[in-house]
């Protein structure tokens, strides 16, 4: 490492790495240099002129955001001249600002307010007319109030650089300059809402949040998004028992401040009008509401009968429920119901990957690796649509580290925009293109290979063989679909594997086989909707469903038990990279119970409570720590940050049944059952459809 540079700031001598910007060096040493346009990770603008500082031997004040420290440099941030400059910049900024703070969403957490409070003048000398333009709605979720805009261009950069979408630009000149959407009067983009988040003032506001609350009325609960498997931390703004918004401004969690449309808005299924809030039992062919005790009693009785005559059970687990719930479910199924017939919707071949990597360590990529590493091979996935955060990480690595990308996909993907090489192959044929890339990939010092569900079974072994033959440091990531898809495998929600990838030594039916079975006496579905794709073969099977909504599966049920959503419970989930993180309850819904509690109550009702232990998440997690390899991480550590689990470092001698692996390939605005009940995701999709219909009509 190059020698540190010594410089002086406000009389303090400081050493820092060469090339460090004065504004950053100051921040690291507890000296605030105010700025609007400077934003860590985005390109430099030097546009807002708030960060002017005095530098000895320089004739005029310098912008601290583009000035690298130099040896012997003497910087002053707190002189009369600097204070005056800050004040005057703010005075200029406020000339055309509407000062509608009393009704502005940003009031209370507005950077402009804070700056004026600290550095500005309460009094303005501006007595002319202010410029005004009307507010615009650019999409169901994005509103733009031009007069409030201070033109820091953060949104433009977040969209272009961060997202690779470039849906925002600047129109007009001078004081008439405005931010404008890519389709003239509306946006066509990922609707990620990063522009709203990054806006220092109330110029960009969220259709889901605007005029609903004041920031200080909310409590902020950090939990994990329950949609895709990337495992983004989302901080929910909660007022009473209502979630007002989702964002991650504190940059905690693996995702920093990143959130996609789902993470930011699609918590809203939780208070959908069709949410089930009372247990239901089929009476005379119809589902009728009953009390919890009646419903539980019926389930326990039926399950007890079937158990006592060793009848055939089928248990289907979820991709969204917590590790604790999954662990508890399989434990009760295996030890309580004495069945190995447990499965879930499998979305990626993690099992074969772990087996193929046996004997090695540290070869499963973390989400941080996707930013740190300098080369990526992306196979069979449209990452920007299906795993927005992973895509964001890789894009950031490209921007900051000039990372090399290689893609092998069936269709055009966003990663191609900056890939070194792009190869088009149909799903399932991708690996045929590997040799073509060998020379490129072998020349990379380090590589992360990310693959979708088209690479499974022996193809995974072939891919790992190829990767290990390159002679460089390779890490892998097998993509899975949902917030706890990875945890479901880790916790043994398959017949062939117990928690921690220990072979069960027994076989059992898959989800498909359970649905096709004529001999199944009871089917217990916890947070899944297997009947979406078709009816059950058997009419006689006693079906118990735990869910939030009356899904196709719940409609066939004999007993429906209303379950809590991820935002209504505590526990842990494991993301696509095997990083375990904590869910924290944000709200509670009347009438529902967490899946963990429901399972426990069924066990209790059957007199088997002692077998499964208390249905307390932390207690169950304690058992997971002892039982599941790689999960021996204290909860206190998880409270601070995500921890990657290190699964078995040995063979997993089972057939991963690749024929069962099938990703749903959910895009930006879909997310299985949860997506179907999100009002915001619907409004976004509807607005797109109606626009494209209008455009079609205009052209015909």
């Amino acid at each position, binding site marked *: 490492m190059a020698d540190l540079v010594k410089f002086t700031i406000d009389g303090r001598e400081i050493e820092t790495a060469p090339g460090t910007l004065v504004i950053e060096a100051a921040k690291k040493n507890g000296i605030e240099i105010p700025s609007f346009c400077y934003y860590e990770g985005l390109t430099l603008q030097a546009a807002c002129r708030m960060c002017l500082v005095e530098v000895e031997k320089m004739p005029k004040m310098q912008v601290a955001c583009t000035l690298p420290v130099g040896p012997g440099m003497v910087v002053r941030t707190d002189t009369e001249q600097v204070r*005056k400059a800050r004040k005057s910049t703010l005075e200029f900024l406020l000339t055309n600002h509407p000062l509608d703070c009393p009704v502005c969403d940003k009031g209370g957490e507005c950077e402009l307010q804070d700056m004026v409070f600290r550095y500005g003048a309460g009094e303005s000398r501006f007595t002319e007319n202010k410029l005004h333009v009307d507010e615009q709605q650019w999409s169901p979720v994005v509103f733009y109030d031009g007069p409030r805009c201070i033109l820091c261009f953060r949104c433009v950069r977040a969209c272009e650089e961060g997202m690779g979408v470039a849906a925002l630009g600047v129109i007009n000149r*001078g004081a008439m300059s405005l931010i404008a959407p890519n389709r003239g009067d509306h946006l066509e983009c990922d609707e990620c809402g990063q522009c709203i988040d990054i806006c220092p003032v109330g110029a960009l506001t969220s259709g889901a949040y605007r005029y609903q609350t004041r920031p200080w009325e909310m409590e902020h609960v950090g939990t994990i998004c329950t949609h895709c498997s990337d495992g983004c931390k989302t901080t929910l703004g909660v007022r009473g028992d209502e979630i007002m918004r989702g964002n991650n401004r504190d940059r905690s969690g693996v995702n920093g401040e990143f959130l996609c449309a789902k993470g930011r808005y699609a918590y809203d299924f939780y208070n959908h009008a069709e949410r089930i809030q009372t247990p239901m039992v089929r009476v005379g062919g119809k589902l009728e509401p009953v009390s919890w005790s009646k419903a539980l009693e019926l389930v326990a009785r039926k399950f007890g009968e079937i158990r006592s005559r060793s009848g055939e059970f089928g248990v289907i687990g979820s991709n969204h429920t917590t590790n604790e719930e999954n662990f508890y479910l399989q434990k009760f199924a295996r030890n309580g119901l004495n069945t190995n017939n447990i499965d879930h919707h499998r979305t990626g071949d993690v099992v074969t990957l772990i087996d193929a990597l046996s004997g090695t360590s540290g070869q499963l990529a973390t989400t941080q690796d996707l930013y740190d590493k300098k080369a990526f091979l992306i196979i069979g996935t449209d990452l920007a649509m299906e795993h927005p955060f992973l895509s964001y990480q890789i894009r950031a690595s490209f921007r900051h580290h000039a990372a090399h990308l290689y893609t092998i996909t069936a269709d055009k993907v966003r990663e191609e925009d900056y890939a070194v090489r792009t190869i088009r192959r149909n799903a399932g044929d991708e690996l045929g293109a590997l040799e073509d890339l060998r020379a490129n990939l072998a020349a990379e010092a380090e590589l992360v290979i990310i693959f979708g569900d088209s690479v499974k079974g022996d193809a995974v072994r072939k891919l790992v063989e190829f990767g290990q033959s390159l002679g460089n440091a390779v890490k892998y990531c097998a993509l899975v679909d949902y917030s706890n898809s990875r945890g479901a495998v880790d916790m043994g929600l398959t017949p062939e594997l117990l928690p921690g990838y220990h072979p069960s030594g027994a076989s059992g039916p898959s989800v498909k086989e359970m649905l096709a079975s004529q001999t199944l006496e009871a089917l217990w579905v916890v947070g899944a909707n297997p009947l979406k794709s078709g009816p059950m073969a058997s009419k006689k099977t006693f079906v118990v469903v735990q869910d939030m909504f009356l899904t196709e599966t719940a409609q066939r049920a004999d007993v429906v038990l209303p379950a809590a959503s991820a935002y209504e419970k505590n526990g842990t989930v494991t993301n696509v990279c095997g990083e375990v993180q904590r869910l924290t309850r944000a709200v509670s819904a009347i009438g529902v119970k967490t899946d963990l509690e429901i399972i426990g109550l069924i066990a209790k009702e059957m007199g088997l409570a002692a077998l499964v232990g208390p249905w307390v998440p932390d207690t169950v997690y304690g058992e997971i720590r002892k039982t599941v390899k790689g999960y021996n991480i204290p909860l206190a550590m998880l409270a601070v940050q995500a921890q990657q689990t290190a699964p078995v470092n040995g063979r997993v001698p089972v057939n991963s049944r690749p024929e069962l692996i099938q990703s749903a390939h959910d895009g930006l605005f879909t997310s299985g059952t949860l997506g179907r009940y999100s009002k915001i995701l619907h409004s976004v999709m509807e607005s797109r459809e109606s626009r494209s219909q209008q455009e079609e009509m205009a052209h015909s």
Partner: protein
Amino acid sequence: MLYNQPDPLEVKVLSRRFTLPNSQSIETYLANDGYKALEKALGLTQEQIIDEVKASGLRGRGGAGFPTGLKWSFVPRQSPKPKYIMVNADESEPGTCKDRLLIEYDPHQLIEGVIIAGLAVGAQQGYVYIRGEYRYLIDVMDRAIDEAYAKGILGDNVMGRGVKFHLATHSGAGAYECGEESALLESFEGKRGNPRIRPPFPAVAGCYQSPTILNNVETFCAVPPIFLHGGAYFAGLGTPKNGGTRLFCLSGHINKPGVYELPMGFNLMRMIKEVGGGMRGGKKLKAVIPGGSSCPVLKADECDIAMDFDSVAAAKSMLGSGGVVVMDEDTCMVNAALRIMKFYAHESCGWCIPCREGTTWLKKLLTRFHEGMGQRSDIVLIGDLSKNMLGRTFCPLGDAAAMPTIAFVEKFQDEFEAHLDGRPCPFEKSSRLVAV
């Protein structure tokens, strides 16, 4: 159309072919020393070319007056990237109208200068960025470029000497800001014409982030005479450190407005009285803007100065782009300040806060003030706001708006005070906008 008849006091070096019949054509050019300087330069090394330009004392004619030879020497010798020559023909400084004549009447002189610049740094491609409003000049330039290609002067084998140089025109789209070199490059690359963070300067990272020589039209046009007659000859035309002649654009309340080529250091009062034919209608001189609208105004008694970069700077103004705007005793200085501020408010690109908000605020304030709705505190405010912009904006446009305003307020405080108390503009009747 030429604005004026040549004046006997002129020293015609760059403009000497303007009055020749068919002066635009390559035949006329070749018959009058055309491309002889290039011939010479082709026999020189890169160092020799740059040294000759340094010896000429040529300073950038766009306004800043940076020594041209020094600027060229900043281009890195060894660059893995191609190098470019960029001609700034985005002439938009109010009061300035010389580049259009240089292109309209002698486009080949520009081409020759650009090729020599290419030789100086090893560039093989040049571009002429012409302001959008000069559409007809693009045709002139394109025709000249075609002629030069046809004669083998441009192309893969410049004058048969095995050197490559290509040239093309590019149209601006109507923004003053794009005359600022980095904004010009952004605009040229097809982006919004916002200025870039500097450093790096264009010599290191300019066009397509490659080393680029970027100079004004007049600067490039001065290059052929330098090689034809030698750097020392050119330097001898002007004053120390201010080599050569300058095309001064005389406008305003004088009898003979026009573009005159005069030696650097020519006295401003003589320029007005003798070259410009004196004040129109025998009026008294009140003030002069010596180098385009961004330069602080000089009062009549400050005008007995030599017109070179250093002397005008010593008078606390700037030689700028050579746009000399002369204003007589009937001109309202508040209105002049307002007129200039309207221009800058209209042309501010909106990138940085002090310029964007400051120019608009001042425009509104000056408008109100000129209408007689001003207060005494506004006079202080006008100066204060200008000072709050000065030196704090992203690019020189903010300074260009602030500097003249500060000067107007300081030097003509009495006229500002005469507008107070709801009184109508004392110059109302005779007040006609100065030709800025």
